[in-house]
C-alpha cells in the first residue's frame, strides 16, 4: 500500500499564497477588540512565528505544541491548521491530522490538497467511505500540479472503489494510471482484486488467495499491454490452479471472447456454475450471443441479470440492446432509458439510444443523445 510521506507529496509547499493570505474574520469582525484581545493578538503572532520557525528547523514536536497553542487563540488560522496537519500526518497521528484538516477544509473548501490529505488521513483511520468521498472531491478540485500527491490520491481512490464494489470504475482508473506512467508493479494486487470482483483492499487479502489475486492482476496487466501470449498463459494457469474460485472463469472467458469466442462462451458458462448469480458473466455471454445473432439465447440471460441486480445500469443497457435487436424498439428504448437514468455517464447507452430513437423516428431525442455523447467525449468529462 502507498503510505506517501509528506516530503514525497510535496505538501510543505501546498498552501498557496491565496490560501495563506486571508484569515477568516469571524469573531474579530463581530466583537470590539478589547485590551485582552489585543494582548492575545500579540501572543498569537509570537506563537505563530515560533511555530513556523520550529517547523522550518524540523523541531516537529515543538512545532506541534506551538501551532496548537496558536490555534487555541485563533482556531480559524488556516496556515496553522495546514502546517500542523501535515506534521501530524507525517508523524502518523492520522486521527489528529484528520480533525485539524476537517477544520482546514471547512475554512477553505476549495483547497484540493486539503481534501486530499484529509482523505488520506481517513484512509489510515479506516473511515473508508468518507475517505473515498474526500479523495474524489480532491480529484475534482485538482491538486495544483502536485504529481506525487495526485498519484497517491488516484491509488487510494482506485483501491477504495474496489472495496466499495465499483470494480469497473476502479479498473478504468488503474488503466488510466498506467497509461499516465504509474509503475504497474504497484497495481498488480489492486487490479487482481478488481478483476476478480473481490471487495478487499490489498492489505485485506487472505493469505490463501494472494497468489490467485496476483495471477489475475498480472494477467490483466499483460492484457492491457497487449501481451496476449503472456495473458493467455497467466489466465489459463489461474483457471487450472483455482477452478472453483469465483471470478476466475469470467476473467479468462472475457479474455477468450476476444480471441476464441467459442472457448470464451464455455468459460462464461463455467463461471455461472461456480457463481450462479454472476451478472457480468451473463451480460458478456448475452453480448456475444447478440454478436452471433443468437437473440433467443441472449434474452433470458439479460432478463435474469436485470432480475438479480435491478439497479445495475449495464444490465438494463444490455437488455435494451437485445430487445432492439429483436425488433422491440419501444421495449428496448424503455430499458435503455432506465440504464441512462441509473448511469448517465455511460457513453454506450447514449449511442444505443441515439440509434434506437433514430429508428423510431424520434429525431429530437436522437439529437439530444448526440449532444450528450459529444459532451461526455470532451476531454476532462467524467467517464
Amino acid at each position, binding site marked *: 500500500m502507498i503510505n506517501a510521506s509528506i516530503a514525497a507529496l510535496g505538501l510543505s509547499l501546498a498552501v498557496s499564497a491565496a490560501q495563506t493570505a486571508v484569515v477568516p474574520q*469571524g469573531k474579530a469582525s463581530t466583537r470590539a477588540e478589547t485590551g485582552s484581545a489585543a494582548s492575545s493578538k500579540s501572543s498569537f503572532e509570537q506563537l505563530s512565528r515560533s511555530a513556523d520557525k520550529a517547523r522550518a528547523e524540523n523541531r516537529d514536536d515543538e512545532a506541534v505544541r506551538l501551532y496548537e497553542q496558536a490555534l487555541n487563540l485563533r482556531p480559524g488560522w488556516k496556515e496553522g491548521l495546514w502546517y500542523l496537519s501535515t506534521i501530524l500526518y507525517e508523524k502518523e497521528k492520522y486521527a489528529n491530522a484528520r480533525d485539524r484538516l476537517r477544520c482546514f477544509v*471547512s475554512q477553505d473548501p476549495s483547497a484540493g490538497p486539503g481534501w486530499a490529505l484529509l482523505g488520506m488521513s481517513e484512509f489510515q483511520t479506516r473511515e473508508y467511505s468518507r475517505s473515498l468521498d474526500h479523495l474524489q472531491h480532491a480529484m475534482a478540485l485538482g491538486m495544483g500540479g502536485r504529481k506525487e500527491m495526485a498519484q497517491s490520491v488516484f491509488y487510494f481512490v482506485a483501491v477504495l472503489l474496489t472495496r466499495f464494489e465499483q470494480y469497473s470504475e476502479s479498473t478504468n482508473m488503474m488503466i488510466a494510471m498506467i497509461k499516465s506512467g504509474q509503475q504497474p508493479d504497484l497495481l498488480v494486487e489492486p487490479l487482481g482484486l478488481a478483476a476478480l470482483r473481490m471487495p478487499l483492499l490489498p492489505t485485506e487479502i487472505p493469505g490463501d488467495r494472494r497468489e490467485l489475486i496476483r495471477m489475475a492482476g498480472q494477467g490483466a496487466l499483460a492484457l492491457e499491454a497487449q501481451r496476449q501470449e503472456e495473458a493467455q498463459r497467466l489466465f489459463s494457469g489461474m483457471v487450472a490452479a483455482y477452478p472453483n474460485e469465483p471470478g476466475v472463469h469470467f476473467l479468462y472467458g472475457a479474455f477468450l471472447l476476444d480471441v476464441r469466442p467459442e472457448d470464451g462462451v464455455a468459460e462464461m458458462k463455467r463461471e455461472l456454475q461456480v457463481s450462479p448469480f454472476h451478472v457480468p458473466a451473463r451480460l458478456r455471454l448475452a453480448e456475444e450471443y447478440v454478436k452471433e445473432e443468437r437473440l433467443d439465447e441472449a434474452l433470458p440471460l439479460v432478463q435474469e441479470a436485470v432480475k438479480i441486480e435491478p439497479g445495475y445500469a449495464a444490465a438494463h443497457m444490455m437488455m435494451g440492446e437485445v430487445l432492439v435487436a429483436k425488433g422491440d424498439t419501444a421495449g428496448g428504448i424503455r430499458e435503455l432509458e432506465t440504464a441512462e437514468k441509473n448511469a448517465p455517464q455511460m457513453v454506450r447507452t447514449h449511442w444505443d439510444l441515439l440509434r434506437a430513437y433514430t429508428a423510431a423516428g424520434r429525431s429530437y431525442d436522437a439529437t439530444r443523445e448526440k449532444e450528450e455523447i459529444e459532451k461526455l467525449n470532451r476531454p476532462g468529462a467524467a467517464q
Partner: protein
Amino acid sequence: MLMAVPLLALFFTANPALQQTPQNSFDKIVKDAEVARTADRVPDAIELYSEGVRLRPSWSEGWWSLGSLLYDQDRFPEAQAAFKRFAAIATNPGPAYAFLGLCEYETREYDQALKHFQAWGSKGSPGNDALIDVAGFHWALLLTREGRFPEALYLLAGKAQKLGRSPALVEAMGLASLRMTNLPEDYPQERRDLVWLAGQAAFYSAVHEHDREEEYANKLLIHYSWEPNVHYFRGTLLGFQKERAEAAKEYQQELQLSPQHVPAMVELALVQIDDFNAAEATPLAERAVALDSRNSRAQFALGRALLETDRFQESADHLEIAKRLAPDSAPIRFGLAKAYRALGRTKEAERESAAFLSLKAKDEVLAPTQQKNGNREQAGPPK
C-alpha cells in the same frame, strides 16, 4: 457512514423566547446567520451562530443550527458540544440525542454514544428518515461492539429490508453474525473477507433471497470452516429456513470447535426440544445456563426442556428468570403460561397468555423472533 443526514430539514420547534429578545445586535446576528446559512456560506454561518449563542446561551435554535452545521462539516467534537447545549435547554430534544450519539461515535466515546442512542430510542426515535437510518445503523454497530448481537441484527435486518444492499450494511451484518465485538473501523484486516462473506449471507437471509444466501454461506464454509462462529452462524441461517436437522449438525460442529459456545448449545437444545428430545436437550441447556446464567435464551431453553420433561416448578423458575432478562419476548411468556397452567396457577397462566398475545401482535418480524431474545436489560431498538 451510511449516508449524510440533511440536518436542517429536520423538524424544529422555534424557541418562543427568541422573539422576545430586545437586543438589536443579537437580532442582527440571528438574521445574518440565517442569511449565511441559506447562502451556503458555512464558515460565516458557523461564526455567526457561535457569536449568537455566546450572546444568548438560551438560544436553542442557535445551538441546533450550529451543531447541524458543524456536524455536516464532520467537526464532531464541536458539533457534540453544541448538541449537548441544545439538549439541555430544548423543550423537544429528541433528535438531538441521535446526533449526540452520532457525534460521540465519531469521537470514540462509544459508551456515551450508546446511552444517547438508547435515550433517542426511548423517545420513539424521532427524526426524518435519513436520521433514523443513519442513527439506527450506528446504534446497531455499537450494540455489536457490546456483544448484543441479536439486537444489532434485528436493527440491521430492518435496514436491509428498507434500504437494500450496501457495502457498509453488509460489513455491519457480517460482524454481528460472526459475533465479533468490533466496529468496522477496528477489526483485523485479514478478517475482511470472512466478514464480507458472512455479511452477504446475512443480508440475503434478511431479504429472503435464500439461493444467494446459500451461495455465500457455502463460500464461507469453503474458506473458513475452522473459524469460530462460522458453523453457528450457518446453523442459524438453516434454522430460519426450518431446516432443523441440518442446523443441528452445524451447531454440533461449532461445539466441536468451540466447546464453550453457549449460543450453539442453546440453539441445539431448542432444536432437540422441537424434535421431542427434551431429555437430551436438558443437560445441554443446563450447561449453557451454568456458563452464562444471564443469557435469557439459555434460561428459556432450559425452562422449555424442563417443561417438556414434566419438571414444571423448575421450568417456571427458569422461565421467570428468562422473563426478567427479556421481558419483551413472546415465546418466553408462552412457555411461562404453559408452566403455570401445568402447576395449576391459572390466573398467572392467563396473565402470561395475554402478555404473549400482546407481544406477538406487536412483533414486527424483521428478524426471526429467536434473534430478538437477547439480553434486554436496557431499552431496546425502535420499532
